[in-house]
């Protein structure tokens, strides 16, 4: 009996040899695994994406603070326009960092303090009248951040003169505007200083693939952002895909309207694409997946090519929703729904195919392989 087992084993080994040789012949093996290096990838993300991105956003936030301070010091249509421009510039820059909701940003729920819309205008007005408010309360989430500023700078009255007049005549309005910006400055400040402090090394050093690893957290944050805050938040919900009725008043930057809402969405989409592809010759999700040899085993097409093709279609459909996203939501609702659907296809490639190929764990619970 022992002999036959030995024979079977030898047979297995021989077959193994034949198969692995055959595979080599087909060019089926992934490239040299030098690039399957999570530490290099995390370092690239920390030093070349997150930290510089936060720095650029920090600059824009400083300008926003200066301009809103100037406006509350002397509320005129001219200072209002300055403040609004600073708000727009910071809002666009925010789109390039909102997806980094892991680590310090996740800890302070940065997004909750910066960009949950539609703004709760009634709540904001109540706060202004009351003069007391706590931005840490769950109910206060849509009463702060960029959406609140949207209302405060564009929606409290009709026309720049009337808005400026509102601030000139109401100390409570001036104070609320100041406090909203101060809260953003303070919340972001803690995140920014942690990245410039010890968190960067913590992040880069956590090279595993379990649920608490940096890679797993980044991928979770990335796909969650794409699915929930870009696909659903910016397009799906206002287009009514969730409820069956278009709700254009739920778009981002609703009180300003015009070109900005679409600009925010396309900036966010481009950020998602750039995060995936990185810079040529530098570590990125794309280079990592290519190094893993990730491909559709039915067709042998590389996964990164499939993802980028869908990103392209999705970006194009999204950019066709201009010039005024608010008007498009009702006038050309089918286009908005189509944009949502194309994004959904990309979300699946990211959430299912990419996550699967990366071999990362998404839950903390024991698992014996599905």
């Amino acid at each position, binding site marked *: 009996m022992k002999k036959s087992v030995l024979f079977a084993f030898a047979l297995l080994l021989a077959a193994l040899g034949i198969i692995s040789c055959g595979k080599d012949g087909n060019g089926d093996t992934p490239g040299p*695994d030098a690039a399957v290096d999570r530490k290099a990838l995390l370092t690239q993300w920390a030093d070349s994406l997150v930290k510089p991105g936060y720095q650029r956003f920090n600059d824009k936030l400083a300008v926003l603070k200066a301009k809103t301070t100037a406006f509350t010091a002397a509320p005129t249509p001219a200072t209002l326009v300055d403040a609004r421009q600073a708000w727009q510039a910071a809002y666009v820059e925010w789109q390039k960092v909102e997806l980094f909701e892991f680590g310090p940003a996740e800890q302070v729920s940065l997004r909750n303090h910066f960009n949950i819309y539609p703004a709760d205008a009634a709540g904001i007005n109540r706060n202004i009248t009351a003069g007391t408010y706590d931005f840490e309360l769950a109910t206060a989430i849509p009463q702060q951040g960029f959406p609140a500023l949207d209302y405060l700078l564009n929606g409290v009255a009709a026309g720049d003169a009337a808005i400026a007049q509102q601030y000139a005549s109401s100390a409570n309005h001036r104070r609320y505007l100041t406090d909203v910006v101060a809260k953003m400055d303070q919340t972001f400040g803690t995140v920014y200083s942690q990245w410039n402090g010890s968190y960067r090394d913590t992040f880069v050093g956590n090279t595993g693939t379990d649920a608490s690893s940096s890679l797993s957290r980044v991928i979770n944050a990335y796909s969650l952002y794409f699915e929930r805050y870009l696909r659903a938040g910016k397009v799906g919900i206002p287009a009514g895909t969730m*409820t069956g009725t278009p709700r254009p008043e739920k778009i981002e930057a609703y009180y300003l309207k015009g070109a900005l809402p679409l600009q925010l969405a396309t900036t966010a989409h481009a950020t998602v694409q750039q995060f995936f592809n990185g810079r040529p010759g530098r570590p990125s999700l794309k280079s990592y997946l290519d190094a893993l040899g990730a491909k559709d085993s*039915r067709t042998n097409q590389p996964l990164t090519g*499939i993802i980028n093709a869908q990103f392209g279609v999705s970006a194009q459909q999204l950019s066709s929703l201009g010039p005024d996203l608010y008007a498009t939501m009702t006038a050309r609702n089918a286009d908005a729904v189509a944009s949502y659907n194309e994004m959904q296809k990309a979300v699946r490639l990211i959430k299912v*195919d990419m996550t699967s190929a990366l071999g990362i*764990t998404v*839950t903390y619970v024991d698992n014996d392989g*599905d």
Partner: protein
Amino acid sequence: MGQGLRRYLQGYTAAAPLATFRVAIGLLVLASVVRFWAKGWIAELYLKPKFFFSYYGFEWVRPLGPYTYALFLFCGLCALLVALGYWYRSAAAGLFLSFTYIELMDKSTYLNHYYFVSLVGLLLVVLPAGRYFALDTWRHPARWRSEVPRWTVDALRLLMGIVYCYAGLAKLNSDWLVHAMPLRIWLPAKNDLSFIGPLLGQVWVAYAFSWFGAFYDLTVPFFLLNRRTRPWAYLTVVVFHVLTAVLFPIGMFPYVMMVAALIFFPAEWHERVLQRLRRLLRLSPASHQAPRPLVYGRATRQLLLIGLGAIFVVQLLLPFRYLLYPRELFWTEEGYRFSWRVMLMEKMGQVQFKVVDGATGRARLVNNYEHLSVLQEKMMSTQPDMLVQFAHYLRDYYARRGVRNPKVYADAYVSLNGRLGKSFIDPTVDLARVTDDWRPKPWILPFDDEITGL
């Protein structure tokens, strides 16, 4: 029945192996319960979710709200009593029932090794493991037995053998052997480990692991049975399971198997372990009473043998029930659970449910995360029976909220072992009207590929 079998059934062996097995498994289950509790999983998995995926025929088994903690406490207590051999039979029954109840509360926590523990629990209820090195025999010396029928120890060995062999058989398929899937995905994800890390990125290593894994599972019970190969076989058991513990998030499974495999060691070895334990615990050395065998009454013995026979016939057949279904097992998962299919698939999915008002035709999309935990959503998105269960929950949920005659459609997308994801179930089928039973599910879309093998 043949002469040989009759003689075998009349053979006797020392009771020590049953005693050490009882102690070890009791302590391991106790440790599992403590670990589960300490990680906060009771609340996360059984208190927080609003909906639970029950098993077919066990819909009445649900979490008990805050009393779920009491259930775990009871289970842990029974495990401790089993280890001590105190009120052994009742404790074993309590362990089996409470542990199984816990496992039946929600399908999304299904793990093969939980199923294994349940089966071991069932065997412990009927096997005479509380007659030696047990508090019961200290309180009631008349119950003490130093020898038990051979088949009582062999029943545990047979269970172990079935687990390993069926796990090995399940690996004999083209994805595992020819494409080294899913290890080819999982191993490079661990390339930051010291020493072996750099190797894990190599494709040949994935092939070597796949082939060795299949060979190991298929043969290790036989090597463990053989006296000469046993020490080496057990060494590979330790190495293999330590490796899987390092590489994969499979919790207690490696330790359960490492400890359970000790049952293959001869009675003298177990006796030595118990001697050492006695000295450690400052108990009186093994009683110098004359050996006393456990002799069952005729009817009891008959009943036990028939019961064990039935258990093992089911065990041998159940994993093959998938043959009754027409399509690819890994894709449809019809007959997948309770079959020792461990670490076989890298399967992921995403599903978007749509609820349509039957009267107005108004459609809305569902945010799964508003109803399900991360684990539940992950498990549901690749398993058709769970998709139906959730669809029924949505039907009732929206009916309560005023949607008339709700129709529920699912747009599901699933990727399996490195194949690009594709549509998983027919998005035009109203899942609210589909029943979840044991018949094949025709609304699962074709796999469009082939995995050959068992």
